[in-house]
């Protein structure tokens, strides 16, 4: 195997094709998106709408990065062989957590410096809930106030990011150092890191789902919400993984590395987590539907009906989600051909990535209410702010990815299982 690894290392250029100019382009696009979003907040007079749209983008890109970290850890814990080359791309992807923290800070600042309820209603005790009550008069708020207050929330958010930054730095360092010295101890170190951290990462992503997203309607509680968020994390990361692999293949980097079986393997993963998302989404809906308790059903009612009983736009979004986030990709991915043909798996991955965003929009945006306590409609100017935010945060994440991409070898050439990956075979 050592001879094989040696021949591989000579065949692959030390630094992949210039990534620096791409990285700068991505950063430029990202900054443009951020500036546009900031302009929107300043000019449109709709600060809450822009801020919650920004939250959508932060959650979207954080979800993808967490999904990549989880997939790396799953890779190490199962001692997988086929995904070694793909793992390197995920290792570049998880370099983004420190920037995501930086981009999350504006939301904290807005909460600290503004009235407190720009994003999360519980930040302001005088925030009027639907009806006449304010948050300060709400017994349920005081029950949850030990964690839902701006102090705990800020400390918690920074700690969550700190953990993710620490784990990703550890995983990256071990893998990148192995490129240089080829010592197998780095593989063992990653096994240990993954074993210690995977459950904690699950806890962290659950906290992110609970604190950032579920607390937008803090009356509502769903214990499976972390699992829902996990399924979107993994689906987002896998879709990006497919698209990055295809991009590198078309660009030429992955010629001779990526084969049909790699696409088949990741395609099966994408398929499995499509079913997993549906399983979690149905479980949550089914339990709330069966129990039929008003304090739980209101969350779905908000996404279906206005106060006068008319159907609102979110109901159509939910139906679109069932079709585009489950039914269509599930049926398409049943076929072997669709998984191994780049011109087919590419659009399917892009579709899933888009509907992950739509799913997050569906979960986050109805947190914005109008005077009647109805969810503000789906089709609104906020879609523009979601777009600029996603481009802004995404540009920064892509820049972080490309910067890391240019700094190491294309694939982990001295990983003990690299030969197994390159000869991955049916």
């Amino acid at each position, binding site marked *: 195997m050592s001879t094989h690894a040696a021949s591989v290392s000579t065949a692959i250029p030390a630094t992949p094709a210039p990534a620096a100019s791409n990285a700068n382009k991505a950063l430029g696009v990202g900054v443009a998106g951020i500036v546009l979003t900031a302009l929107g907040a300043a000019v449109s007079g709709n600060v809450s709408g822009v801020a919650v749209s920004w939250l959508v983008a932060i959650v979207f890109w954080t979800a993808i990065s967490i999904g990549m970290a989880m997939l790396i850890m799953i890779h190490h814990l199962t001692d997988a062989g086929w995904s070694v080359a793909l793992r390197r791309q995920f290792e570049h992807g998880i370099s983004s957590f420190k920037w995501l923290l930086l981009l999350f800070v504006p939301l904290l600042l807005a909460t600290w410096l503004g009235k407190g309820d720009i994003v999360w209603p519980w930040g302001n005790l005088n925030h009027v809930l639907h009806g006449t009550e304010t948050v300060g008069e709400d017994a349920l708020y005081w029950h949850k106030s030990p964690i839902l207050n701006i102090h705990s929330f800020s400390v918690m958010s920074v700690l969550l990011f700190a953990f993710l930054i620490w784990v990703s730095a550890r995983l990256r360092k071990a893998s990148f150092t192995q490129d240089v010295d080829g010592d197998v101890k780095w593989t063992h170190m990653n096994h240990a890191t993954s074993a210690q951290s995977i459950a904690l990462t699950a806890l962290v992503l659950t906290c992110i789902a609970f604190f950032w997203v579920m607390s937008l309607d803090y009356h509502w509680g769903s214990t499976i919400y972390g699992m829902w968020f996990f399924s979107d994390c993994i689906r987002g990361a896998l879709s990006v993984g497919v698209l990055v692999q295809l991009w590198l293949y078309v660009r030429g980097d992955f010629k001779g590395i990526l084969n049909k079986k790699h696409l088949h393997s990741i395609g099966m993963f994408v398929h499995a987590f499509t079913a997993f998302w549906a*399983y979690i989404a*149905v479980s949550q*809906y*089914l339990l709330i*539907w*069966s129990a*039929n308790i008003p304090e739980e059903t209101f969350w779905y009612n908000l996404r279906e009906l206005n106060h006068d009983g008319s159907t609102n736009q979110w109901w159509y979004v939910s139906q679109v989600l069932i079709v585009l986030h489950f039914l269509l990709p599930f049926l398409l991915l*049943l076929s*072997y051909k669709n998984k191994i043909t780049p011109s087919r798996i590419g659009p399917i991955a892009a579709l899933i990535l888009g509907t992950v965003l739509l799913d997050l929009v569906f979960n986050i945006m109805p947190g914005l209410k109008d005077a009647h306590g109805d969810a503000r409609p789906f089709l609104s100017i906020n879609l523009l702010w979601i777009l600029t935010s996603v481009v802004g945060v995404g540009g920064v994440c892509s820049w972080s990815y490309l910067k890391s991409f240019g700094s190491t070898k294309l694939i982990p050439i001295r990983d003990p299982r690299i030969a197994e990956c390159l000869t991955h*075979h049916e």
Partner: protein
Amino acid sequence: MSEQSHGLIATFNTASGVYHAAQNVRDAGYKHWDCITPFPVHGLDKAMGLKRSLVPVFSLFGGIAGATAAMAMIFYTGAVDYKLIVGGKPFFSPIPAVPITVEAGIFCSAFGAVVGMFILCRFPMLYHPVLKSDRINAALDDKFLIVIEARDPKFNLAQTKALLEKAGGLDVKELEA
């Protein structure tokens, strides 16, 4: 040797030998033939010109049948045959039927896969001429065999034998049916 011959059998000493011979037999247009190897040889299915297995099709139809049957059963029992009001819910709603539908769909697709494999492999097969050959023990250890059956339309004792010998086959003999 009896009148009926099952076909021709040839021995190969190496995996690459049987691999290249399989390519030759495939290119000669034979349909009813097989390779017998002591371990899976990577790429041999392609060298033999085999298509992907049809098992997934059985699995798909099993899954569709199972899911449809489960949903239909829940609809029939709940909304037609024995209407009961439970928890103030409608007689039939697809929501609570989802878990049973999924379970039945998965069960029947797995069952379809197993049944499909039995059908496609023609199990249970109680007798096969190759198992009577004295070479089969070697083929379970370190030798590789190619068997071309006499029922193949292209089969011609002299020509097929020449093909196998040219492809590197050793000890090409007729196999008793």
